[in-house]
């Protein structure tokens, strides 16, 4: 049952509730958000073991309290330039299908409670890659928040095939 719900696009859920809480994060100044309930952990810089031959976006794996977490560089996933040398990433840990993934972003911000009235569908002009990973946009004061579709973000099979 749970899986069926999970498979539905976030946008439906987004509209259903009055307000929803999002963990916000920044990549190259752009504000992103993922539903707070999907977040397991927020991490600072970690010792990451590189995985040879893995897709470019897979930064490696790390040990989070005895569990192995696969780190995904969201910058690369979104087709952005690699993180400049010396800048330490932060990560948001999410669980998908029993596996833990850490989404590496530039920085993690506060948790925002957003009214569903401010939710918009993806504008058609959005880059196709972004449209793939964005579940929709929230209009905030002064800026826009892109809701990341975690499931699609972690779905590598389609591109690999």
């Amino acid at each position, binding site marked *: 049952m749970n899986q069926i719900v999970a498979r539905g696009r976030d946008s439906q859920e987004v509209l259903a509730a009055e307000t929803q809480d999002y963990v916000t994060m920044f990549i190259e100044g752009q504000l992103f958000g993922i539903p707070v309930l999907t977040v397991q952990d927020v991490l600072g810089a970690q010792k990451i073991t590189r*995985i*040879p031959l*893995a897709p470019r976006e897979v930064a490696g794996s790390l040990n989070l309290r005895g569990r*192995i977490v696969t780190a995904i560089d969201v910058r690369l996933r979104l087709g952005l330039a690699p993180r400049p040398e010396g800048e330490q990433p932060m990560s948001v840990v999410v669980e998908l299908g029993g596996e833990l993934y850490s989404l590496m972003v530039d920085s993690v911000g506060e948790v925002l409670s957003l009214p569903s009235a401010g939710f918009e569908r993806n504008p058609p002009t959005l880059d196709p890659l972004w449209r793939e990973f964005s579940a929709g946009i929230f209009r905030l004061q002064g800026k826009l928040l892109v809701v990341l579709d975690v499931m699609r973000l972690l779905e590598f099979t389609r591109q690999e095939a």
Partner: protein
Amino acid sequence: MDDLLSEFLTETAESLATLDVELVNLEQNPNDPKILQNIFRLVHTIKGTCGFLGLPRLETVAHAAENVLGKFRDGDLEVTPDAVTLILNSIDRIKEILGHLEQTEAEPEGNDADLIERLNAMAEGRAAPAASSGESDAPPAPPGPGEADNPADDAPSWPVAAELEAEFAELLGKNDKPAAPSVPASVPSTPAPAPATAVQPVEEKPAAVPAAPKAEAKAPAASAAPVGEAKESVANQSIRVNVELLENLMTLVSELVLTRNQLLQMVRGKDDSEFATPLQRLSHITTDLQEGVMKTRMQPIGNAWAKLPRIVRDLSLEMGKKIDLQMIGAETELDRQVLELIKDPLTHMVRNSADHGLEGPEERRAAGKPEVGKVVLNAYHEGGHIIIEISDDGRGLNLAKIRAKAIANGLVSEAEADAMTEQQIAQFIFRAGLSTAEKVTSVSGRGVGMDVVRSNIEKIGGTIELKTALGKGSTFTIKIPLTLAIVSALIVECSNERFAIPQISVLELVRVTPNSEHKIEVINSAPVLRLRDRLLPLVSLKKLLRLEEGEDERSETFIVITQVGTYTFGIIVDRVFDTEEIVVKPVAPILRHITMFSGNTILGDGSVIMILDPNGIASATGEAGMAGATQAADSKAARVDANERTSLLVFRDGTGDDLKAVPLALVARLEEIDLAQIEHSHGKPVVQYRGHLMPLVAIDPHMDLGKEGRQPVLVFSDRDRSMGLVVEEIVDIVEEHLKVELAVDQPGLIGTAVISGKATDLIDAGYYLTQAFGDWFGTQEEPSFDNEDGSQRRVLLVDDSPFFRNLLTPLLSVAGYDVTAVDSADKALALRDTGREFDIIISDIEMPGLSGFDFATAVRSEGPWRQVPMVALSSHATERDFERGRQVGFNDYVAKFDRDALLETLMQTLAAAEGAA
């Protein structure tokens, strides 16, 4: 009690408990299809299982109840309280029969016609007349369908009982239950005069099921009751636990082991740590816990074999062959996860042996073999592995046909094939698309074959080998790890990244420096390594994993010689660390496509490390394309005689830099003891070990054991005695052909052998055993060796005790004999059939299977060994044994523990035999 039966009882008791609840639920919600469905399913399962086990009474009751339930489910019948009561009655009846079954392992006599009648009536929609009354008031003896009730008067001749007894006998015969005699015994003991009504008042339990046949059903039960009640009910003795829960437990324990290792590592450096003692205790408990949890997952391999006899029987009928399937070591236990994975490959291979391997009776007769072909399954533990052998005495592989097929399928060119050895060609059967069966039978020959078997076995980290001799049969040897959960892995580094390689596939390590004898040579940019007259293909881990090239040329590199199946190759890495116990965890799904890794894990220091998959690396290096044919030739040749190699444990004893070695098979365990725990008994050091006192012996008798710190100890065990040999450092485990080059006249040493290219002293474990226990061998004599004869006499040693085999093999080899040791007379005779020749045979007397006497009789009766002198070896050296031994053909008789006498006797017997010739 039969495993199958007790499992059935446990399972059914649970189902019934659920049923009770569900039925009451159903009564309250008669229209809930889910509940109905569940009830239906449960009853159906019971019915099915009963049918399978041959329990006709249970089956018919369950069947009738299922019919009614089916009508409920389909909406043909309304769920009324009466109907539910009837179903509940059936359930009670089933319980009662089960209760009886549990006590006597047989269904009670009697039948359930009344109940079934009512159930059927209900199913057909007839208003069942008995239904209402059946609820509470027990009709003591309703004139139910006649034949059930007639026994009361003339008890001695119960037709029903007789009939059932016959059925049981048949059933028991089929299942080959050890309990067989108990049934016939219980039937005659039935109190003959007991008329149904007379018994009932005596019953302790109120009549749960009010039906006439019950009384007579109970009668035999009552007679068996004292025994039955003494024991706990089978259904209560075990609980069923979700496999997932066990898996989780195992994972947790694995983590605990890792954490423990980590802690031990931290404390090891500090001698005075206050944590040492509690940690030691934690360590022991963890080990016990790990063993316990592992045990819950262990199942006898016989479970995977259960259906083989049937398959073979059907096959023999279908093919018109006579097949004798022998299963040895069915009680050998292994992890259920592994068991599940090898079930199908095993079935396939046994089918193959029976179908392709064995000839038809005529062909066998023509070849001078017994008409009945043999397929032998043999499983046993060796080291941390399970070895499963599947052998047949059939025609062997038709190598010419395999070769032709391989060429036809483009697997190999004709020229290449010409250059291949027979064993190498035989390996083609492990390749896809090669079936040697000319006809596609229903059994095999459909092209799904050994390649699948091989890949399945390799998937669980196992290996498979094949030996075949034309006209003599084939033997497959499968080696699989005991468990998949914790493996030992070698940690290597390449381009500053660390990787783990499962130890099972690592053969040896070679260090390469500019001035070492080993050099990496390059043929058209393909690196190779010369190693003991073989050329090994090498792969650079750096290139394979596309790691950054290192800064500059390293002054030293290491090569991990790895074996996958029969393919041996080297992996070039920068550095090698030590080995670590790791828990293999699957990689994230998004990384599963990378075939180079079999998983990942967390090391003791907390970092994540990828586990290399030797299979993946091998296939990435083109093994699939047979590119390494020439190399493979060597490796295969090497594998063939691998049996004659001995695993040796190399260590330092603290008396110098000399390496010492002892056959690994002699060593029961490697332990590290805390010196603080050493106590003294009669002035000799002892340590408490596994609830016993274990004497400690050092190679150097003057070695100071110290008071603190930890010391590695080799534990030798025989039966219930253990002895610890204190060593300085354990260096390595190598597999070598054991050839003692120099014998030394020093107690405690057998001689010196070349092991891994280094002169290594081979210690005489027997000497140290007698140091610990003077009477270990029943003699306290100082061993001394004669090494007079230079020419190599070939000795065949037959002894079922691995301990003595391993003890005598070096002893004899140092005395100048070329020793071949086998663990049973059957194997010895098999050697004879392969045409091996020996100058003398030494045989144990007490052996499972063929005894030494039978063996001698067999040897003397026919075959090329008729004239070979034989020496009997036994712990009983009485005059009578002596005489018997002589009668069956032994030339001499030696007490097992008298090594001097053995050597003496060997010499004399050989001399006598030569003199006679």
